[in-house]
């Protein structure tokens, strides 16, 4: 007996790629013709009324029930479906006369520009026409190129009729003038020639009294007939996919009632009509008026008015924001048109199609709970009773589900519905639950309440990166807040000052699995931005770890055991370590507690090895650091160091959790975090940690020192001000006196705050709570402490001292022009002392700037992130390791040149492995055990052999860079160190077999030797780990990259300007700079060219080149520019100051000056007017009438000094920059010079003698592209983003920037991430429509007959199709062999 194969039933049908024959493959955009509209319509709508007196819809009115059911009670008269079934039907409305469609008005004008306004043939001559047509018909031409081509045709035709010119049609001889777009009308100016001819012709008519003017307007009716006459070939040439007459509106499809519902208010007495309905009503009225006017033959002029009215109404129906609607035609209240429905954030595209509202969600206030695991979230019972999960009844859960069914929807844990396999659904609200529970069968689905262990998605807005939404496991708890472990605050950027968070419950097993695997907290401990750890201990956890691991914390047996039991709720087995102090009393240290925390019992095989330098590290002695700042874990024992943020906190790559994560996978790191959270929360609860007024009360000594410090610096400032007032202040290079004063005073005042801060930190007792917090990095900085205790410091507004809000002073409490510290916003008091009135005012000024900046920044960065996301959303890694976009064009051949996953990078600079740490680990975890150490040559041999295996070759998937770095590390660093050590110990190259030196061998091995086993383990570990770090195919690396660049933008502080080392050389930084780079701005704020010099060590040469680059004006090198009045002629004599020229080595003489004068525009001098008398003197003769001569002379005299005689005009100034040569051993002096040139003109700077053109860079990306090409531009984009980010202290993996740069340059020109650039990068209409300029893209797509293949991310979301990225990329299905099950009763005997 064989049973028919049962189809496996899932709790909810999983998505199956191929659902029958229907799948939206592409969307074709086209134009509607009149015929199609009439065919589509079920009813002609010509009555502009809604209801009759009995509140019944009027037939042929706007709410005719043939267009769909008007409300829930009514039915459809066309299909007889009810409100839920009927999708609605169209009606139609025929217009008396054609009108323009506002969306197509631009296209219509363009067409008219190109055709003859009489015979509709194209204005181009035949040859040109054929060339363009050939190009247009080329099947390889992309839509983007086609529209470029069309623009070219239009431009060509427009140029023929520009100005007052007119062109005669080659076919019919009609005179065509310029076509212009008026306000919802088209103007045809036929030019002067036509008017002359016209007037000439008219003048023959004698009886004409008034002059007749030709109406310059072309009416839509004329346009319609012109378009109708156009040949299909011409249409093709102009990139029209369809007949052009369809661009005009002759009839309107009336949309179904379903999309413009009529709502009854006041209990059915009145109805509220949708804006669209009201617009249609006005169109109908206007249309009727027009018809009346036309049929009335008495006078024709009036018809025009109604026609204009109709045009206006139809235009507003499509786009209510259309310009040029006269006031009297506008509706009294603003009514939206179709464009308004689609566009904007709340519009259809962004509001409903790209982002949809969902069920099974919850939102409430969050609060912390250190007793939860990091992967858990506590959900209030109230919420768990509403949210459900459909669980299929099986053998294993039937009893549980029966109980749930019995409990019903209101008692937890209960259930809401039962679904039978045949599809019937039973609500448990009212029906007899007991019976249903008893009748529960396998295969039924029960919508049960949420229970412990269910998977939920947890999210906090703004969702800036993928860690903003992660999957947790539910824990159902009493009370009303969502709770989670504080360690997870960081990825969400959450605090508990009233934040709310959202929660979603995935409804299928498939979704749950994917959520757990891809979005689980445990699998997202690291940020892909840089590979740093993000989920880590914070705040109190750091404080208590810091206090526990202090060198002088000792615990006796009882308290040590108690604390040990804190970390695992007393449920874990724990091996008590041997006490550090055995006699006179048994005492354990706090550091031993951390050994227990990492490795509670000896069977747990976690061996952590790491070294970290904490904030307090004194910089010498490593582990012996007197302030215990060097953290050293060896085989899970804390050897030394007081733990703080660097070890336990987020944002580092070699902290404790990072090491655990890399070496022992995420579970080890997560459990360790859990243990620490529990331990520290309980420990600090017993220990107590609070802050009081005595913590911020300064001691007597501190007050004295502070006053002394302030007095000293005030005096210094006063001295400077005195010098400035007397004009004796020594000026800094590149600054004027005022700037110098400001810089020096600011420096002195900043020094005050820093110095006082230092004194303050020293003076505080180590038990001072703020001090502890700042030392361990849990909260606050030394500056914060010194502001509370000692001195608030200088307040700044816009990077300067407080500005003058009154005339010549900041506040009226001070004398005018006062520059003293107190008058310019220096706050000498501390928050403890309290601020004086003026100080307080200055403080608010600074505070406000911060607030304003945050508000402005959020909007700015949000928009930037959105643009980045839209541009990069569809980039993914494919199975051939290339990065491609949705239309499969290659952006990168290998992601980041090595195909590594940025989130897995262990080294600080983004390299895959931190060799020295791994080496340390290998040495600690595999002790030599009597094995002999290797010699230098042996090491080389083993390494080279291993490196020649297949998995270390490029074919085996290993990048050249990694191979080189590995062999470098082993041979250059390791083996060489060993060699040096052996020399130091007076050992030879090779080993001694025995003798008295054997003990030294042992010492050498212990110090830095390596055995064969260790080396092999190390090599294999490095290589296998490297291969595991490859980026998985399908990864949406574009989206990750966009988030990685967008998210740090939100954190960039208000410091937008920054000194680049040289006096007063500012560089734009922060969000504005990132914006410039990403936008590929043509004009940037601070263009700077860094010019390397051929003779870099020579200062005089550098000065000389600087003089050549900087523009020199004639006025600067002229001794005199004088007007010479002779009796016969007047002239201007210029004498050059040869000494100055010699000193600055400019190579100028009168001849070059003459050339410069002649080349200067606007001065308008001719060759013969400038006369060189001798190399240092020249004369200029003005040419003018006698009466104007005097003025001309003075004009020249004023203009001539501004003539540029040497240098580059686009350069503002150049500065010689001294840079310390780092490690070039050959250069003994160690000082080199380079030039920083403010301004553009890269080509000119590179061309100057003495400049090393090959190493000269510019920060202006567009200029780099123009001068050096696209590859240079790409590098420049990477460098500039990297520089900007790193100067804000943010580390971002280089691979993200490379991807962005590649995307911006892969088309061969630098495309900005703006609407113009994105338009050129993407083909999809829907994607562009959901980005910006929604309707423009839709209109042009329909004119051009675009075909949108649904392949990108945006399009797939809009159409509701799973996208071809990540898990959706894989299209292969395995054919699993059917297992034949033999169902029969078991044999009685066997």
């Amino acid at each position, binding site marked *: 007996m064989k049973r028919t194969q049962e189809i496996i039933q899932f709790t909810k049908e999983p998505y199956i790629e191929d659902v029958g024959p229907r799948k939206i493959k592409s969307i074709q955009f086209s134009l509607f013709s009149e015929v199609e509209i009439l065919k589509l319509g079920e009813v002609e709508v010509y009555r502009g009324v809604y209801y009759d007196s009995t509140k019944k819809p009027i037939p042929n009115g706007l709410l005719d029930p043939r267009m769909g059911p008007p409300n829930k009670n009514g039915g459809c008269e066309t299909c007889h479906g009810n409100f839920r079934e009927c999708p609605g039907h169209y009606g139609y409305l025929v217009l008396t006369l054609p009108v323009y469609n506002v969306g197509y008005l631009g296209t219509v004008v363009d067409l008219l520009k190109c055709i003859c306004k009489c015979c509709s043939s194209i204005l181009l001559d035949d040859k040109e026409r054929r060339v363009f047509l050939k190009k247009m018909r080329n099947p390889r031409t992309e839509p983007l190129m086609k529209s470029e081509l069309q623009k070219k045709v239009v431009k060509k035709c427009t140029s023929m009729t520009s100005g007052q010119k007119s062109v005669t049609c080659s076919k019919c001889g009609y005179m065509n003038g310029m076509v212009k777009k008026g306000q919802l009308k088209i103007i045809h100016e036929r030019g002067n020639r036509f008017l002359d001819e016209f007037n000439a012709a008219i003048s023959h008519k004698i009886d004409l009294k008034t002059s007749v003017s030709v109406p310059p307007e072309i009416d839509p009716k004329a346009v319609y007939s012109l378009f109708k006459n156009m040949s299909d070939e011409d249409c093709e040439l102009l990139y029209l996919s369809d007949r052009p007459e369809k661009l005009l509106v002759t009839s309107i499809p009336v949309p179904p009632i379903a999309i413009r519902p009529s709502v009854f208010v006041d209990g059915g007495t009145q109805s509220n009509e949708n804006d669209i309905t009201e617009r249609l009503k006005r169109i109908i009225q206007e249309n009727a008026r027009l018809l009346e006017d036309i049929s009335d033959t008495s006078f024709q002029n009036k018809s025009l008015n109604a026609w204009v009215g109709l045009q206006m109404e139809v235009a507003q129906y499509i786009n209510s924001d259309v310009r040029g609607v006269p006031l009297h035609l506008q509706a009294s209240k603003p009514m939206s048109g179709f464009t308004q429905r689609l566009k904007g954030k709340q519009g259809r595209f962004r509001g409903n199609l790209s982002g949809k509202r969902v069920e099974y969600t919850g939102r409430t206030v969050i609060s912390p709970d250190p007793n939860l695991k990091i992967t858990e979230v506590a959900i209030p019972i109230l919420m768990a009773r509403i949210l459900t999960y459909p669980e299929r009844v099986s053998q294993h859960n039937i009893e549980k589900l029966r109980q749930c069914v019995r409990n019903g929807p209101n008692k937890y844990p209960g259930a809401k519905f039962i679904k039978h396999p045949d599809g019937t659904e039973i609500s448990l609200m009212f029906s007899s639950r007991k019976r249903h529970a008893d009748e529960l069968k396998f295969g039924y689905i029960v919508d049960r309440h949420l229970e412990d262990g269910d998977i939920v998605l947890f999210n906090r807005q703004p969702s800036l990166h993928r860690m903003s939404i992660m999957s947790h496991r539910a824990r159902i708890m009493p009370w009303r807040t969502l709770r989670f472990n504080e360690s997870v605050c960081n990825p969400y950027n959450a605090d508990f000052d009233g934040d709310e968070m959202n929660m979603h419950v995935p409804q299928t097993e498939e979704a749950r699995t994917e959520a757990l695997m891809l979005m689980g907290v445990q699998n997202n401990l690291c940020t892909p931005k840089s590979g740093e750890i993000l989920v880590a201990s914070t705040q109190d956890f750091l404080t208590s770890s810091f206090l526990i691991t202090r060198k002088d914390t000792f615990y006796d047996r009882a308290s040590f055991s108690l604390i040990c039991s804190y970390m695992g709720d007393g449920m874990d087995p724990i091996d008590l370590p041997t006490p550090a102090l055995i006699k006179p009393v048994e005492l354990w240290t706090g550091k031993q507690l951390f050994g227990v925390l990492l490795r509670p019992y000896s069977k747990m095989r976690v061996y952590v090895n790491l070294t970290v330098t904490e904030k307090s590290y004194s910089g010498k002695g490593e582990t012996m650091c007197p302030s215990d700042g060097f953290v050293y874990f*060896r085989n899970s024992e804390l050897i030394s160091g007081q733990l703080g943020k660097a070890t336990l906190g987020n944002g580092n790559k070699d902290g404790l959790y990072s090491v655990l994560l890399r070496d022992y996978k995420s579970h080890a790191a997560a459990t360790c975090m859990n243990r620490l959270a529990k331990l520290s929360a309980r420990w600090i609860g017993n220990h107590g940690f609070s802050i009081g007024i005595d913590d911020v009360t300064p001691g007597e000594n501190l007050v004295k020192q502070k006053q002394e410090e302030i007095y000293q610096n005030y005096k210094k400032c006063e001295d400077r001000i005195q010098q400035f007032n007397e004009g004796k202040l020594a000026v800094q290079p590149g600054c004027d006196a005022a700037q110098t004063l400001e810089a020096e005073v600011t420096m002195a005042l900043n020094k005050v705050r820093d110095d006082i801060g230092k004194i303050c930190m020293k003076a505080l007792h180590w038990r001072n709570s703020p001090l502890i917090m700042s030392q361990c990095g849990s909260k606050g900085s030394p500056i914060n402490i010194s502001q509370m205790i000692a001195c608030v410091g200088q307040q700044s507004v816009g990077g300067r001292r407080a500005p003058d809000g009154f005339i010549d002073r900041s506040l009226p409490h001070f004398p005018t022009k006062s520059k003293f510290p107190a008058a310019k916003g220096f706050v000498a008091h501390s928050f403890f002392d309290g601020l004086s009135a003026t100080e307080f005012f200055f403080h608010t000024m600074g505070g406000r700037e911060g607030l304003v900046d945050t508000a402005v920044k959020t909007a700015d960065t949000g928009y930037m992130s959105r643009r980045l996301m839209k541009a990069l959303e569809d980039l993914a890694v494919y199975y051939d390791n290339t990065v491609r976009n949705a239309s499969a064009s290659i952006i990168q051949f290998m992601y980041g040149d090595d195909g590594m996953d940025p989130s897995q990078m262990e080294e600080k600079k983004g390299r895959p492995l931190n060799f020295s740490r791994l080496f340390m680990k290998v040495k600690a975890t595999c002790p030599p055990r009597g094995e002999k150490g290797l010699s230098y040559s042996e090491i080389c041999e083993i390494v080279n052999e291993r490196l020649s295996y297949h998995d270390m070759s490029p074919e085996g998937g290993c990048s050249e860079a990694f191979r080189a770095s590995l062999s470098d590390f082993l041979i250059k660093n390791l083996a060489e160190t060993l060699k040096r050590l052996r020399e130091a110990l*007076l050992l030879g190259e090779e080993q001694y077999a025995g003798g008295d030196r054997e003990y030294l061998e042992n010492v050498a091995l212990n110090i830095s030797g390596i055995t064969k086993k260790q080396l092999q383990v190390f090599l294999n570990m490095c290589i296998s780990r490297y291969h595991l770090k490859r980026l998985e195919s399908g990864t949406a690396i574009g989206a990750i990259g966009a988030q990685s660049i967008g998210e740090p933008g939100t954190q960039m502080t208000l410091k937008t300007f920054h000194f680049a080392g040289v006096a007063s050389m500012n560089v734009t930084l922060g969000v504005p700079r990132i914006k410039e780079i990403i936008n590929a701005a043509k004009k940037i704020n601070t263009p700077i060219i860094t010019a390397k010099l051929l003779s870099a060590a020579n200062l005089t040469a550098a000065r000389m080149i600087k003089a050549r680059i900087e523009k020199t004006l004639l006025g600067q090198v002229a001794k005199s520019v004088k007007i010479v009045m002779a009796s016969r002629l007047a002239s201007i004599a210029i004498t050059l100051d040869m000494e100055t020229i010699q000193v600055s080595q400019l190579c100028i003489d009168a001849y070059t000056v003459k050339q410069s004068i002649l080349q200067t525009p606007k001065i308008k001098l001719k060759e013969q007017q400038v006369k060189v008398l001798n190399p240092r003197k020249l004369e200029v003769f003005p040419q003018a009438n006698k009466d104007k001569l005097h003025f001309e002379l003075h004009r020249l005299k004023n203009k001539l000094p501004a003539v540029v005689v040497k240098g580059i005009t686009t350069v503002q100034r150049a500065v010689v920059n001294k840079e310390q040569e780092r490690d070039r051993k050959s250069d003994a002096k160690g000082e080199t010079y380079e030039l920083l040139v403010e301004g553009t003109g890269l080509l000119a700077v590179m061309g100057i003698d003495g400049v090393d053109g090959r190493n000269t860079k510019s920060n202006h990306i567009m200029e780099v592209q123009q001068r050096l090409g696209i590859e240079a531009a790409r590098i420049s984009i990477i460098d500039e983003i990297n520089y900007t980010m790193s100067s804000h202290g943010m580390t971002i993996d280089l691979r993200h920037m490379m991807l962005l740069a590649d995307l911006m340059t892969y088309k061969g020109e630098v495309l900005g991430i703006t609407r113009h650039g994105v338009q050129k990068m993407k083909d999809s209409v829907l994607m562009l429509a959901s980005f910006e300029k929604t309707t423009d893209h839709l209109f042009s797509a329909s004119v051009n007959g675009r075909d949108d293949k649904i392949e990108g991310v945006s399009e797939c979301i809009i159409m509701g199709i799973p996208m071809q990225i990540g898990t959706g990329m894989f299209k292969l299905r395995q054919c699993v062999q059917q297992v034949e099950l033999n169902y029969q009763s078991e044999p009685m005997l066997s």
Partner: protein
Amino acid sequence: MVETLFEDIFTVTQKDPDGKKFDRVNRIEARSEQFDMYMLLDVNTEIYPMRVKEKFMMVLASTLNLDGTPDTGYFIQGNKKSLADKFEYIMHGKLYRISEEGSGKHVKADIFVSFGGLLMQLRGDPSIAAKFELDQKLFLLLRKV
């Protein structure tokens, strides 16, 4: 008699060479008489006060058992007779690092031991370092003389 790894008499030369940082723990600097060793040692001075110029005997051993059986790693309380009876202050810890200083004739070896965070640095002739191994569990025993 149990064999010890190192035995010598030291004199405290300095207390807290880098300034006092902790309440209960002081770092002492000491020099030995016999092997001319230099030592830095963190001592819990709250329970075992030490003063400058004081002399003390220091022993490093890998086990406290008098018969020399290796330490089990498990700490058992009891009144068994052991090496500990003769000393006043005993710490238990782990040798974590051996390094060298200088070169040629003047080469010195450093031994670093951490007693649950209380550190010891012992500097002297390399021949002394040869007896020690990395990750060795050590007992430090002190007695004033």
